[in-house]
């Protein structure tokens, strides 16, 4: 989780990711951010996030992103 927070903070240093409830709806993450995030997560966690997983529900907040990482690692 710490590694994920590090990636997010690197992407948007001015955002407190622990506080934001919906990163997508609140306009913190846009489609370009999502791709950069996916690339960095892929490299950091050695997983591949397919395009069909790039949906707002998976990127709502730190918890949902973490759940996605765990699920893909498990699958």
């Amino acid at each position: 989780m710490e590694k994920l927070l590090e990636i997010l903070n690197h992407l948007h240093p001015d955002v407190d990711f622990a506080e934001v409830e919906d990163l997508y709806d609140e306009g913190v993450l846009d489609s370009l951010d999502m791709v950069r995030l996916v690339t960095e997560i892929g490299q950091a966690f050695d997983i591949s996030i397919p395009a069909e997983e790039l949906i707002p529900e998976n990127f709502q907040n730190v918890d949902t992103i973490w759940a996605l990482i765990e699920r893909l690692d498990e699958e």
Partner: protein
Amino acid sequence: MLFTSFSFVLFAALTMLLYFIVPGRMQWKVLLLSSLVFYALSGEGYLIFILYTALVTFLTAHVLQHRADAEDAFVEKNRATMEKAERKAYRAREKKKRFRVLCAGLFLGFGMLAVLKYTAFVIDGVRSVWTAFGGESFSIPSLLLPLGISFYTFQSMGYLIDVYRKKVRAERNFARLLLFVSYFPQLLQGPISRFGDLQEQLITPHRFDGVSLRAGLLRVMWGYFKKMIVADTAMVAIKTLVSESDVYQGVYVVLLILLYSAQIYGDFTGGIDITIGLSEMMGIKLTENFNRPFSSKSTKEYWNRWHITMGSWFTDYIFYPLSVSRPMQKFSMASCSKLGNIVGMRLPVYAATVATWFLTGLWHGAGWNFIVWGLLNCLVILVSRELEPLYRRFNKRFPRLTASAPWGAWQAIRTFLLMGLIRSLDCYRDVSLTFRLWGSMLTTWNWSELFSDGLTSFGLSQSDWAVILIGVAVIFFVSSAGKDTPVRHRVAKRPILWCALVCIMTAVVLIFGAYGIGYDASQFIYTQF
């Protein structure tokens, strides 16, 4: 068949009548029959193309579903004996096989669109190169381009990708799939619906509901108002300003940008209002395609509010798959190691963004003006993105100013003008001519002509100007008033007010729009895409 013609009004009324007379289980058949009749009446020979697309989509989806089911069944059956790694490898192999099937379907689906829409463009390019090297010029074959082909092809291919991704199950009934592909209100200019959002609604029986009918009809009338009062009145002037662009330069280019913004807004959102309104009358809720786009404060926001279904289609089915594809990820890692993280992480995303906007431009038409239009939008988005840290510093430095209403208004006006400027490529249809005319706004200083007879010299009388300006003001007012709850939903619950409004709108459209003096009903702009 034009949405604005009497024959369409009769056709829609008859469909509506039949829809609510027949038993619920027959309703989707009425829609299918109406859709096929509508398309057949829209152009001779069009039906064969849509049947081809539907058949390719149906068969490919069927094979994809069959393979996916077999894969799931195999994993389920062997779950106890398969290791996690083994299971992963099996799924990866099966996904690859399904991907090949998907590619075949996409090739056949997009192939027809490519041949019909882009053959002449490609041959023209080849001819230009050929003649530049001294070769003899040759003629370009002219191919039939069925109306709405880009819309129904994209909708069908989106469905195929959704089946491949296991987001939806393949439709087992060909006639039902054909209805999804050909549903007549949205056939010619969208919105580009997703199977998961639309199909169930098309098949499910709907009971007659007075409030939905009233709200839907009001939206249809609102669409006619926008199209016939604003868009078609402005069209006359735009035609003159474009065809006589050697005369109308400088301030007239500014006028063209403003008038075309009004026209495309009235035309496209008006058409979508008619589409969504007709569907609402039958109890079918389509995805919204616009959300007050001209109030956007940035280009990024504008593209989240304008032609929303097309934007999300390109994001979900082109931008994301391209960005996270294996070659792009490899490119990302390579560029990170060679150029550092700051540049390296950006390059693949920006490459995918450029490719997506290039294709978005191409989707709009086979012409360099559309491609340049797409790439300019891309440039503005990427530059704005790079400037974001600067904006943030500015916002922090001047918090009161940047939170004020005038600052918000300035941002909206700036975005509106920038988008209008780029959009004018759509009018002149010639990239170098458009650039020259943009330059004339700075070099030809003829603003004083506005105070003589300049405003009425290109086909708009004073009363036409009044109609457009009042029309735009009404649209602005209604749109602002319906920011949270659409006005029509409130009005639909009050039958007397509703009745009065429908009468007034019908009268206004009849007197000032459709059948007023000098009216020339025009096709909707987006049907040509």
